[in-house]
């Protein structure tokens, strides 16, 4: 459904992505594992068109994304929940959720979607009138994911959703990802927390200084000696 073919990205003279190829099939959860500065965030930003690639092609649902601005990609169904959550701090929870639906044609009839989001994240329902900036990191992450779902994604990109969160919240988020996968949503998850990322993924790629060094099913990679040594604690 989402294919990256030998993508190159430069920041000024720094060659950050070097021929990255990924293939995410419909209904799959694919993890992108790697340490800090391996290029995970850049990969997702490039998919969204926030960063231009210097070579290579990205195809979504069979069509090239070349020349499409970010808003067109969002309208096409690729939605990114960015690193660091990036909720709108001065908007309430419900206003944040509404912004997720900004690009939708049926944006004035969102009651069902809001009910669904609140059913999935009961803590958000309790706080729907609260300013997002005054919530905890875990709550903001839930809100960012819920806001992403209001965009009605066909393919959801999650950038470091567990960064800086307590283990209990990390479990909650991986449970959420599993639930979304059961509903058939295609997910690309970029994570430093390799244990969690490999556990939820059907397949995974390991990104090392801008190159894909390994790929395989989540279980294969979790059993791989190099992965265990570099990315998993045991």
């Amino acid at each position, binding site marked *: 459904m989402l294919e990256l073919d030998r993508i190159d990205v430069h920041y000024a003279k720094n060659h950050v992505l070097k021929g990255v190829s990924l293939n995410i099939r419909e209904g799959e959860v694919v993890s992108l594992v790697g340490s800090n500065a391996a290029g995970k965030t850049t990969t997702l930003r490039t998919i*969204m068109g*926030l960063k231009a690639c210097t070579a290579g092609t990205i195809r979504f649902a069979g069509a090239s994304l070349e020349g499409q*601005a*970010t*808003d067109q990609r*969002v*309208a096409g169904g690729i*939605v*990114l929940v*960015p690193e660091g959550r*990036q*909720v*709108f*701090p*001065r*908007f309430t929870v419900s*206003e944040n959720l*509404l*912004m*997720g639906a*900004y*690009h939708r044609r049926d*944006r004035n009839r969102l009651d069902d979607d809001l009910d669904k989001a609140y059913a999935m994240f009961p803590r958000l329902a309790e706080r729907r009138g609260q300013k997002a*900036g*005054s919530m905890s990191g875990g709550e903001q992450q839930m809100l960012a994911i819920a*806001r992403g779902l209001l*965009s009605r994604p066909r393919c959801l990109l999650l950038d470091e959703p567990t960064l800086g969160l307590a283990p209990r919240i990390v479990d909650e988020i991986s449970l959420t990802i599993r639930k979304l996968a059961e509903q058939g949503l295609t997910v690309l998850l970029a994570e430093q927390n390799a244990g969690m990322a490999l556990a939820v993924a059907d397949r995974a790629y390991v990104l090392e200084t801008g190159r894909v060094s390994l790929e395989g099913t989540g279980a294969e990679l979790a059993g791989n000696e190099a992965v265990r040594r570099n990315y998993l604690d045991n």
Partner: protein
Amino acid sequence: MLQLVVGQLLNGVIVGTLYAIIALGVTLTFGITGIVNFALGAFMMLGAYFTWYFSDGLGIPYPLAVVLATLAIALVGLVADQVLFRFTRNNLINGLIVSIGLISVIVAIVLMVWTTTPQNMHYVLPGVFRVGGVIVPKMKAVVFGVLLLVILFTYAALTRTWAGRAAYAYAQNPEAAALMGVRTKVLQAGVAAYSAALAGLGGGLYASLYSITPEIGAGYILKGVEAAILAGIGSVMGSFAGGIIIGVAEGVGSIFLPSAYNDAYGLVFLVLILLFKPAGLFAVSSR
């Protein structure tokens, strides 16, 4: 004495709404494009000349002349944004330099076309309201009412329409707004045009009250920026209150202190307020 104070108070409120409409443009432009557009004062001056020319030169009825001038200034603002300010996004210094250059060009063109002679429009609405000895010209009351309505409309549009919410979301987090599918370039151009239109409207209404000269923009943009900072940049109703505070400080100040230093009284207020509330009176905390 009391009559004088109340009269100057009302006068200050009315002049203050003119400052406020400029301040609103300043605050909106800053929130979306990251620069302070000092040329909004020149746009206001141009709006005054256009209104005067449409009305007294071409014989178009005054209300229609104001609407036409406002639309024309919106177009001027849009063109200036696409040709010049587009290249100064989020760069205050470049924005300042381009503003100053644009102001020089606009003032020079106006001087060439309409000379330095002050222009006075015909009396649009003669007559006064008398309330217990205090006299308010009818036209001043109309100007106040129109500007108040436009400010309230802007506030409502920002909080209740999708375009307004997108603008407010963008001001909080540009990248997150882009990820919601907000067309950021269209939004920036739209806000630049709207801010220019506000300044043009301010100028069109100004034309019905006072003499028009090529220099009027400088004073008004100064007060507009003062009002926006005093209020805490980013607050719509704050710009309104900020404009009125400065207008009243000037009006009432000039009773007790020499009116030659009129422009300083608002600044004194600004300094005092910033000493105690450095982020401005109505600043919204970002957390």
